[in-house]
């Protein structure tokens, strides 16, 4: 997967912008998080006979303008209003070391998460293991989302560069990227989600 350099990012902040149609779309295969890896016996027992992680494909495109990275994320499944938990999507990058995505990183190998929730926008989180995510580093982030009742189209933007706990995303360099989707209609939250199984190489054009 790569992020193509464009002259100006502004138009791309709109998930319905015609500009996105010019960009290469990657089809990321998603799978349910394994039940055995859910962190508490209550979650494992109570959800054993219930479906989660049913979003099997996430469409991703990305551009940047040297200052800001934009990721367009699109998937099928829009929860009706009034659910207890919102539809959500997350983009993950390794901060340092070689964190295992499925384990949400470890004490010294952090994962930087940009999580968007329907109705709430995007926030920065830092994960150091399953159940060990906390407020992440401050950086310039934004999101816009559109849905047509069936499909979400979300654009998440973040400033390029790196910093303490800000995962490095630097033009001319390759990093790794991962994804997760939560479906509100299935009461998905925490580790109940679909995810991209492993890191995907992510090259940022110079």
């Amino acid at each position, binding site marked *: 997967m790569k992020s193509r350099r464009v002259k100006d990012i502004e138009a791309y902040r709109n998930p319905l912008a015609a500009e996105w149609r010019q960009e290469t779309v990657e089809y990321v295969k998603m799978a349910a998080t394994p039940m055995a890896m859910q962190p*508490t016996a209550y979650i494992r*027992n*109570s959800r054993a006979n219930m479906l989660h992680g049913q979003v099997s494909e996430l469409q991703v495109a990305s551009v940047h303008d040297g200052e800001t990275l934009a990721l367009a994320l699109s998937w099928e499944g829009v929860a009706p209003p009034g659910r207890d938990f919102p539809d959500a999507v997350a983009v993950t990058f390794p901060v340092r070391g070689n964190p295992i995505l499925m384990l949400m990183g470890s004490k010294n190998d952090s994962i930087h998460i940009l999580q968007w929730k329907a109705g709430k926008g995007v926030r920065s989180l830092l994960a150091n293991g399953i159940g060990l995510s906390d407020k992440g580093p401050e950086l310039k982030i934004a999101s816009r989302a559109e849905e047509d009742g069936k499909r979400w189209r979300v654009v998440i933007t973040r400033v390029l560069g790196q910093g303490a706990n800000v995962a490095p995303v630097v033009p001319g360099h390759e990093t790794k990227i991962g994804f997760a989707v939560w479906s509100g209609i299935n009461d998905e*939250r925490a580790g109940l989600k679909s995810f991209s199984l492993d890191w995907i190489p992510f090259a940022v054009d110079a």
Partner: protein
Amino acid sequence: MSKKQVAMVMDLNKCIGCHTCSIACKTLWTRREGMKHMWWNTVNTQPGEGSPHGWENMGGGFRDGEPQRGFRPSEADFGTAWDFNHDEVFHGGNEDAFLHANYGEWNSGENWKGPNWDEDLGGGEYPNSYYFYLPRICNHCTHPACLEACPRKAIEKREEDGIVLINEDRCSGYRFCQEACPYKKIYFNETLEVSQKCIFCFPRIDEGVTTACSRQCPGRVRFVGYLDDPDGPIYKLVHEHKVALPLHAEYGTQPNVFYVPPMSSPKMDAEGNPTDESRIPLEYLESLFGPRVKEVLDKIESERQRVASGEESELMDLLISRKWLDMFGPFTKHPRDVVSASPVRIVDPAQTAKVDVVRIMDIRSKS
């Protein structure tokens, strides 16, 4: 496992359903945003739906040590708070005005329930109708299903006294705790997006002051102390005299609130004469407090008889609570004295669950 366990015994023979405990708690702890529907202390009429409505059928807890699936009570299940229409009713000159503001909307929607909507309805048929009151708080369980369910380790059981607290800084509002708690005593704050519940007035306990609900109770219903303190009231009622029983012990969480089950008036026969049969069905009490109910009721009855015949009874003295402060174990200090000695106290934020500790002084307790 905590080193000590603070606990409460409630004597249901003395609860008059006045809700002073509920108001004491509400005034002290649940006046922040998003807390309107929260009554960490509730008093329900039994038999009844309880609060949240139908909580005994919402699952959770443990069976054979295994966590059981539970359901999240909604805000409406707890009873949505409403505003009162005092101005219009008392000064508006409209004789059709309801005390309940937005009465029409309330009466037609799903939010028609209040926290004790079936107050005093009870069970049985006249002349053998009956009811009693069941006050409830968080049980600060020895085996807390909420704590074990939380994927974020946001719930802790304090080592020094076993009080179970939600750390709102760690809570992500996933609400697994609400599902797992079989007593449905955890509330969700939709404004702050965190779970909240009874904190056993820990800032007061830390200062040697008993909980607001126990200190304010006009009926002297609530005993507070350590479960393993042989000189305290809890140990005596639970372990020595064995007259205080856990509610729904079968839920498997080892609750630390215990109840002295209610004695009952006799059933009347067709001619209106009292019979030997209890008006509150024993089976019903056993469904709440387990198989030892009859043994406990028999014991209380026999101790009553001893006192009636002029003998002494430590159990009756204890239950009568002639000496009010004896009900509170080591927590006998007056809140006023604690506040004047230390008007502002800084507490470790990781333990406070964002509680405004200064509010310990809010309730001016009776002296």
